[in-house]
């Protein structure tokens, strides 16, 4: 494989949106490792993820949202959306890239020049993998109730407590985390944002197996773990605002219809292989088909609003709600038409195909929980619709 960059960033500006789409699509066709072409069920992790991020960087496709002065592609939102749509349409494996998508924009906005110089290049090159240390035991969706403490001690902060549901905790080299630096204030106050190496003494990780049979997330324990003070991002006590600042337009990506679309392709495969047909099947298929059609229409509308700068927080909530609930509905319909195969653990060998019906069904369970549960999303939408809950 040649390592000549397929494109330069200035080049990308000249392309129209459809031309940009074609350019990225062609690149994927040519360079994407075929063994990773497993939509829904495969998420790259560890060395695989590093290899993928490096491949993107080698070919000039790394980080569509980062500004150019920090080594990103600096694309306008319309092209960023196309970039993600093409990955999904192609059937590329999912990848988390918390460093590129979550931390990078935070450091670019809130980090010091020294922090940017220290961390951004290695994120860009895929040399460091980051995990997000927000959620805590017993906090659920009430993120601000976090109890992990960071106490200043000379040039360091000493961290005690625990994070949980930390995706890729075992694979990450670093974590960005929220910890409480001052007690006795309103719960959103007194929280600070830190960067930390996972091999810091006093940090231990316990993997947690999920219902889809993976150990992607885990619990992280801090026992007098010492973080250098230079790895505090922004001002002490401003951590909540820093974390929230990112939950704007980036939320459009959580609303991408890729997962339900791929799950619906599996639905049709099951039906073909088993020869399922007839009245009640057609009614089910018709309703899923129309649900997906309308969801894509809604996504395109919210995406257009996001590009125009008119999308609001509750629009992203609505999209997230719609996408996650449809993903679940389709994953359930897959099992319904698979009849006996619905009980098969692991891949179901149906006719000529191996279909991950069980794994998809279980992965879909998480969709209404992560990134704010459906109930939290409904509360956000209700506030826009009806005002505060009194």
């Amino acid at each position, binding site marked *: 494989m040649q390592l000549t960059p397929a494109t330069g960033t200035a080049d990308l500006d000249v392309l129209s949106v459809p031309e940009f789409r074609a350019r990225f699509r062609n690149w994927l066709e040519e360079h994407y490792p075929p063994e990773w072409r497993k939509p829904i069920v495969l998420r790259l992790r560890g060395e695989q993820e590093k290899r993928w991020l490096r491949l993107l960087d080698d070919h000039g496709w790394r980080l569509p949202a980062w500004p150019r002065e920090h080594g990103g592609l600096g694309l306008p939102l319309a092209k960023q959306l196309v970039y993600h749509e093409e990955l999904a349409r192609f059937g590329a494996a999912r990848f988390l890239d918390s460093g590129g998508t979550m931390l990078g924009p935070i450091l670019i906005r809130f980090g010091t020049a020294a922090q940017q110089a220290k961390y951004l290049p290695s994120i860009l090159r895929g040399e460091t993998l980051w995990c997000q240390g927000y959620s805590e035991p017993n906090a659920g969706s009430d993120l601000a109730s976090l109890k992990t403490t960071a106490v200043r001690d000379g040039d360091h902060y000493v961290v005690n407590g625990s994070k949980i549901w930390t995706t890729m905790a075992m694979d990450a080299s670093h974590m960005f985390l929220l910890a409480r630096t001052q007690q006795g204030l309103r719960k959103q106050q007194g929280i600070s944002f830190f960067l930390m190496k996972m091999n810091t003494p006093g940090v231990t990780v316990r993997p947690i197996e999920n219902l889809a049979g993976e150990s992607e997330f885990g619990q992280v324990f801090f026992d007098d773990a010492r973080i250098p003070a230079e790895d505090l991002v922004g001002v002490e006590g401003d951590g909540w605002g820093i974390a929230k600042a990112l939950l704007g337009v980036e939320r459009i990506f959580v609303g991408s219809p890729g997962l339900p679309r791929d799950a619906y392709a599996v639905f049709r495969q099951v039906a073909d292989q088993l020869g399922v047909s007839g009245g009640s099947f057609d009614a089910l298929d018709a309703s899923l088909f129309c649900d997906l059609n309308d969801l894509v229409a809604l996504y395109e509308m919210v995406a257009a609003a996001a590009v125009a700068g008119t999308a609001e927080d509750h629009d992203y909530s609505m999209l997230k709600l719609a996408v996650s609930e449809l993903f679940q509905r389709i994953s359930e319909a897959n099992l319904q038409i698979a009849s006996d195969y619905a009980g098969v653990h692991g891949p179901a060998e149906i006719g000529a195909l191996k279909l991950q019906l069980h794994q998809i069904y279980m992965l879909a369970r998480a969709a209404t929980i992560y990134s704010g549960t459906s109930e939290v999303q409904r509360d956000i939408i209700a506030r826009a*619709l009806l005002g505060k809950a009194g």
Partner: protein
Amino acid sequence: MWRHEDELQSMLRDSVDRYAIANDTLVRFRGKRGSGGGFDTQSWRDMAALGWTGALLPEEAGGAGLDFLPVLSLAEAIGRNLIPEPFVASAIIAATVLGASDVPAARELARALAAGEVVVTLADQEDIAAIEPAAPRTTLQPLDSGGFALTGSKIFVPAWTSGTRLLVSATLEGDPVVIAVDAGAPGVAAETHRMTDGTICAHLGFDKTALDSDAVILRGDDATDAIRLAFARGTIALAAQLEGAARRLLSMTGDYLNQRAQFEKPLASFQSVRHGLVSQHLQIELAGASWRSAAASLQQGLTAESAMRISAAKARCDDAAQAMSKAAIHYHGAFGFTEEADVGLYANAILRWASWLGNADAHRRRALNLSREQQPTCN
């Protein structure tokens, strides 16, 4: 969601909103629904003066010659304000058929429609639950004496009044044709049905109805294509009307729940109520996105792809509006169950619009079939 409107679209929408406020539409709707045609001929002329009845008609005919896309803003706002005049039946469906013809009879009808002097309607449907244009069994026979005789029957012909002008689809010597017929002509028998939106549908019988030789306005593929386009546009416009009506019901219900207090709290503060309305909101947003996506697709031509999106849109808008009308009645409590409450006006109009031009089940099935034809298998 109106964020992507251009200037023309928001101007059209505002003009309907202003008209509705100035004319107190809900009071007017309530007053008109049980009598006459269920609408007002003077209001129809007012709407013509505002350019709505001729929105799609060419400028030579006195129309505005607008593209279909902006005209949908009128349909949405007409649905939202519950304006009873037959905008979809006449200004969209009949106007699309008239716009495809150059013959004098069609030009004169187009002029009169743009001027608000007449209501014109397409009489096409021959079978119950028809969702595609008819292959007409109604026939047009040439007479030795010149002219034609029309024989056959049509059902659920909308926008009926004794003065309504009809565009009837029929077969002439094996060719599909569209003919202009006066509702009051001899040999036209009408059995009328008052619909839940207050308007009248007629089942029509033609028994050797005598017509002049210049009554044929379209023949052959021109006739078929015009009727197909009229159905496509009418279905989207009806979907837009339904979305508009549902959106108004949602805001009426939200306002009501914020005003009413029970157990010392506004009803709108109870989470079960709040989440219930969020579910309605989500369906309405899907509805709005779906018909707009269908309309954009139709701009690229009437293809299997656009037909599929149109059906998906009608199905979604039907269901969203029906669900919202039931929720609106429910959340208004016992008052919602009374004749006096305005939500009932909407619920009734929505029943008619949702069942007209194919209901949700029929359109969902059609969308699926069209998609399967496009991609026979997914492997």
